[in-house]
């Protein structure tokens, strides 16, 4: 029964996501048709390219970064905190961690751990700046985290200079941090049919997801976090110290953001150079929305996003602008927010009616 289905919140999420996806495919098809392309063959081309082994590896690697980024955003969202600064946090964290990893010689095992720890601490500290501004001076975290992104970019540009933390990358004009020695690298996982490797630290994303789920659903801290997000006034009355919560949640969000660059840094590039990927923090905001701040939902959303990014690369070979995928992504995002709200309202009303019916009350 529909009413029973919509009574469960995860079912609402799934229904909303599926409806949004269908809607996005329809919108994309319309845009393709209007532009004079054949939608079925376009999707066909994307799909067959996307399932090639190399594409799968790239998709998974990309999804891991998206996943961590969205998770960082979701921690804040769960208590109505908007961490728009994941982008600056992960880049600064990756840069400092790369420099530290390149500078220190440590035994394998410890070396990776230290690098990851440095990244988490730097990301957390950078985010905590915004939290401190919020609780002491009332500065909106939306504004301060956006501004900290720019400041972060400036700090990176300052530090990433041959006079300070950077060295020239051999055989190019690029500069980057000193490469991390092999003791600090994480071996990749082979995928049949591909020479590319899945980053070993994809597992870090999985662990972070499990940790997030456990924290939110099973711990006292997670309860306070959710309560604050659902009703700040009720949380305060129940004894939650919201200022403390803002600082801890923001620092935690930043720490997870700090991990975003780790799979690639320790699994592929080994150094933070000028061409280290940017913008993952902003993508994470959309993915967190699409995944309803739920660790499982975010996993599917990251994979979908990464798949679309990856498979869009074939479009240019067929003379179709790959920006068409941005339209698909935007349509998914926009419609999922609307559809979820509708599904949620309908579900809640059904829930109330069901309760009233079971109790035989006349509701007015």
């Amino acid at each position: 029964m529909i009413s029973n289905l919509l009574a469960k919140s995860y079912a609402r999420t799934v229904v909303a996501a599926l409806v949004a996806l269908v809607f996005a495919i329809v919108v994309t098809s319309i845009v393709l048709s209007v532009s004079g392309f054949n939608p079925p063959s376009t999707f066909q081309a994307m799909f067959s390219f996307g399932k090639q082994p190399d594409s799968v590896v790239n998709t998974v690697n990309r999804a891991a970064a998206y996943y961590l980024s969205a998770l960082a955003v979701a921690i804040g969202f769960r208590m109505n905190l908007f961490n728009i600064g994941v982008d600056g946090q992960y880049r600064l964290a990756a840069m400092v961690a790369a420099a530290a990893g390149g500078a220190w010689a440590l035994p394998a095992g410890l070396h990776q751990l230290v690098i990851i720890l440095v990244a988490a601490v730097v990301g957390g500290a950078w985010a905590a700046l915004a939290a401190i501004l919020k609780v002491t001076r009332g500065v909106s975290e939306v504004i301060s985290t956006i501004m900290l992104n720019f400041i972060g970019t400036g700090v990176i540009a300052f530090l990433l200079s041959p006079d300070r933390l950077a060295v020239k990358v051999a055989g190019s004009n690029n500069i980057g941090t000193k490469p991390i020695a092999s003791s600090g690298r994480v071996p990749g996982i082979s995928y049949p049919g591909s020479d590319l490797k899945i980053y070993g630290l994809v597992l870090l994303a999985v662990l972070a997801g499990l940790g997030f789920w456990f924290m939110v659903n099973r711990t006292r801290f997670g309860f306070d976090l959710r309560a604050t997000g659902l009703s700040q006034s009720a949380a305060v009355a129940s004894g939650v110290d919201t200022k403390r919560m803002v600082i801890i949640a923001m620092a935690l969000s930043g720490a997870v953001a700090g991990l975003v660059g780790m799979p690639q840094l320790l699994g592929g590039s080994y150094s933070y150079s000028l061409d280290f990927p940017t913008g993952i923090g902003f993508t994470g905001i959309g993915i967190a929305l699409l995944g309803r701040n739920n660790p499982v939902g975010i996993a599917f959303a990251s994979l979908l996003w990464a798949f679309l990014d990856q498979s869009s690369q074939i479009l240019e070979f067929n003379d179709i602008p790959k920006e068409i995928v941005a339209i698909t992504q935007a349509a998914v995002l926009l419609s999922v927010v609307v559809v979820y709200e509708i599904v949620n309202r309908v579900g809640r009303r059904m829930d109330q009616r069901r309760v009233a019916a079971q109790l035989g009350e006349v509701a007015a």
Partner: protein
Amino acid sequence: MSTTEPAVELHGITKRFPGVVANHDIDITVAAGTVHAIVGENGAGKSTLMKILYGMQRPDEGTIEVNGAVADLHSPSDAIARGIGMVHQHFMLADNLTVLENVVLGAEKLHGIGAGARRRIQEISDQYGLGVEPGRLVEELGVGARQRVEILKVLYRGAKILILDEPTAVLVPQEVDELFANLEELKREGLTVIFISHKLDEVLKVADAITVIRRGTTVASADPREVSARQLAELMVGSELPVPELRESTVTDVPVLTVEDVTVRDATGRAVVDGVSLTIHEGEILGIAGVEGNGQAELVEAIMGMLPVESGVLRLRGQDLVGRSTRHRREMGIGFIPEDRHRHGLLLESSLWENRVLGHQTRPPNVKGILIDRAGARRDTERIVEDYDVRTPGIDVAAASLSGGNQQKLIIGREMSGEPKLLIASHPTRGVDVGAQSAIWDHLRRARGEGLAVLLISADLDELIGMSDTLRVILRGRLVGEADPATITPDALGSLMTGAGEGSAA
């Protein structure tokens, strides 16, 4: 009463929403030139009925006749065209515009927006004695004056039949008297007023005829000269009312809560709680009477640690409270039934068992170490549902799905668990049905018998007098008087609350 044809006649009005019937077989006849009151409990279907009459909802069955002609109302503009106007409970005025601008907004075609409109407003104001000045900014006006602007807005649009939805809810007693004088004036000029309320004393004072609604249908018509407030209340709820009363005193001389000279200031520096001192003992219910907005809420929040205390001492069983967090105070044994359960008492979208944890998220049976003990919390929620008669299909439904009375019983069960020493009960029976009200009083009496100290705040004077061992009166943040609940009447207490009688009354 007028002998002309009725202003409004409703016959067999039925309105179904999917799954529920909000109104059925409603029959009301409102005579022209009268004040007709419609009374009923929260959720009895009054609002739906008024929305139908004002064209915001269409009835599934039944007819509406206005001035003898069948009216098919599709929208509020249809209703306005037939001379029906509505004054909403929550004012719909733009603060930064003048009275004139607010009145003409959306009705510019009638008399323009300039001198013509001003003249018309002045005429209406003089004709009905509303005393409205068209040039004043709305933000400068008090609540009563704003309401008169709302009434004028409706009259300006040509209404002859006015629907007033809970008009006194936002007014202080003097303003209520002024409003009633205005209504008399409207009546004298031949207008008809439909007055929605659940304040029965006021209804008896102002109405010429009364219709009682219960569970979505009209159950009785009453003549205000012949019924008492109590009889009306019983008609509203359909059963005999429970009586708030305490039996033998259980008051001991062991102080639980000591408040000494506590002052709380708001953001502007005004003392909202001003030098308040009181002591509540084991087994004592101390009631605080006062018109809302005189510092009760702030006093409660100061005791709970939600508002900072500027000066003074707060002690729970000898231990200092000032400087401790809300959580710490709760752990020391303060239970809290908040005034607004939706804002402060519940996570509406969360399940009942998660709401059981709220406010007790550091204590067994809800937690084990830093983890939430789901099994323990669920088991204890089952216990509360059982012991406190919370009507629910299960503990996994969202709190929002329950009726107000059942939500409140859940909160009370929760706040009574963990052996509290002090219970702060703000309006514990507000907006709950009669059955829940009597159950809540039983729980308070039992807990008092077991030595609980209770701070009771209520706007229901019968409840306050009946359930308190000691009564204090708060006015403008100060405790101005003390009353003996055994002898004081609601009227006498009411006048103490407005500052009419100073000092102690016996």
